[in-house]
């Protein structure tokens, strides 16, 4: 059973997608939550200013993603994790889940951006740069929340602890994202590469930390 790490990750990743596809209600639930959050926002805010648009979007994005990704480790049954433990490289489990969750959060972000633009008035600023920033943020969010979900799954009350453990850690990225978003909204691109670079650095740091630390979480 000595197949490479990448092969293992790929198999597990495909399995993730298959499971999600079978229980579509989970994904649908997240989408409904996202749409209703944006809808409520559109009911409350009329004639919204670009700055508020930006701020509101980040808040809704954050809260929608938490619920989507929190499930990854917490919802796995103890038995299944034990089974994985005996047959595959632990890193493969982490990598497959990280890739899947990152994909999920990027999809949520882009979908959220679209719905937001439709319901709250379409923005007039540079969407390519704005989108890039959001995708970079979602990648980091996917990495971080997957790892924190692995940590939270070790506790008695996993789901409740998830936001508590992850929100303080996500704040640096939120700050960079909102500040970068404001600059793009104002039409000032001078700091764009700096912000994108910081975001990318944080993404890389979280990925490395997760990969290094995961084996300590995994062993029983």
């Amino acid at each position, binding site marked *: 059973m000595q197949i490479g790490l990448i092969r293992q990750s790929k198999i597990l990743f495909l399995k993730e997608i298959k499971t999600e596809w079978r229980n579509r209600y989970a994904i649908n639930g997240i989408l409904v939550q996202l749409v209703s959050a944006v809808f409520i926002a559109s009911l409350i805010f009329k004639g919204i200013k670009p700055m508020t648009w930006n701020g509101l979007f980040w808040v809704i994005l954050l809260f929608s993603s938490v619920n989507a990704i929190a499930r990854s480790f917490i919802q796995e049954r103890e038995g299944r994790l034990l089974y994985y433990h005996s047959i595959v490289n632990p890193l493969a489990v982490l990598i497959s889940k990280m890739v899947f969750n990152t994909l999920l959060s990027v999809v949520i972000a882009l979908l959220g951006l679209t719905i937001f633009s439709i319901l709250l008035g379409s923005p007039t600023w540079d969407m390519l740069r704005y989108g890039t920033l959001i995708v970079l943020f979602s990648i980091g969010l996917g990495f971080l929340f997957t790892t924190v979900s692995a940590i939270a799954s070790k506790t008695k009350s996993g789901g409740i602890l998830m936001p508590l453990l992850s929100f303080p*850690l996500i704040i640096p990225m939120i700050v960079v994202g909102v500040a970068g978003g404001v600059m793009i909204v104002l039409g000032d691109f001078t700091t764009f590469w700096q912000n994108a670079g910081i975001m990318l650095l944080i993404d890389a740091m979280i990925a490395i930390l997760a990969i290094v*630390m995961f084996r300590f979480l995994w062993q029983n």
Partner: protein
Amino acid sequence: MNKFKSYWWKVLGVLLVLYSVYRGTSAKVGPGIVQVTPDLVHANSDFEITVEGYNTHFDHFLVNSAKGNGVGAWLKLDTILVLGRTTILDDNHVKIAFDGFDLKTDTTFTRSATIVLEDDHHGLFLGSQMLRVTVDPDSLASQDVLTSTKNLPYKLDQTYFSFPYRYILYETIRNLNFHVPMWFVMMTLLFISFVFSIRHLNTKKALYDIWANGFAKAGLLFGLMGIATGMFWANYTWGTPWTNDAKLNGAAVGVLMYIAYQILRSSIDDEDMVARVSAVYNIFAYPIFIVLIIVLPRLADFSLHPGAGDSVGFSNYDLNNHLRTVFYPAVLGWIVIGVWVGQLTTRIDRLEKEEEWNS
């Protein structure tokens, strides 16, 4: 005497903190300029301004002799220095009269000028951004309005130990010695906790986990102390206990992270698991915390704290280095006290654990 060897550093910490508290509360705050009236003058004709000072003790120099009264005053506009004549009104007020002057310019401009005051006792002190000067165009005038060189300010050193005066801070500049060290202590203690977490994962020794937890608790304590004192100080200088300031947010997020760390520890039953999982969380949290406090201030274009954005740094207002001679011992002393608190916490936690294991 042998016993002393093990706790000499604690004595050192206590002495340093006592020194900083004594010096920080008893030393004087130097002179400064609070207000200039009127705040807009026209330079081409003679003009008079009244300067309100703080801690200036002008009454000292009230002998208005023929030579003047010992208080020198200048107006500094870009590179030009104009000498004024002073009349002392009371302890904190002085009236300065300037002769009108012409400048070689093409258009009328209004610019901010600096008031320079000087006397034998206090040395030199400045008031910038308090007076604006309008100058009419005059193509014939020469730039050089400097009076003879013997009238330049020369007494740069103060004759006594004093903290610098800062606008709206007044006496509370002293708090720099009590509030700011908390931040340094928090960073140090959390770093020690971080190192012990790494050592725990490497060696699997339960003892290292107890150390990591003890120092995380102490770091949290000093973080809360910093935030509490900061909020109080801010309330009486900036008028609000909480501003959207980069340093403040950094400290608050750090505190949140380590509160989450404590809750994480209490929500796991198995003891080995507590140690392992919380060590992993700690190793995650600390680098992100560091990124946060490096990144946040750079993104803010304005901060009320020194050393960030366009606010002036430490070196800009501590001209005579007096503040540093109290501030650095305070930081060092509080760090030692912090390490002591962390160590005490750890030792007690360890005894508790041992008691549990034995029973």
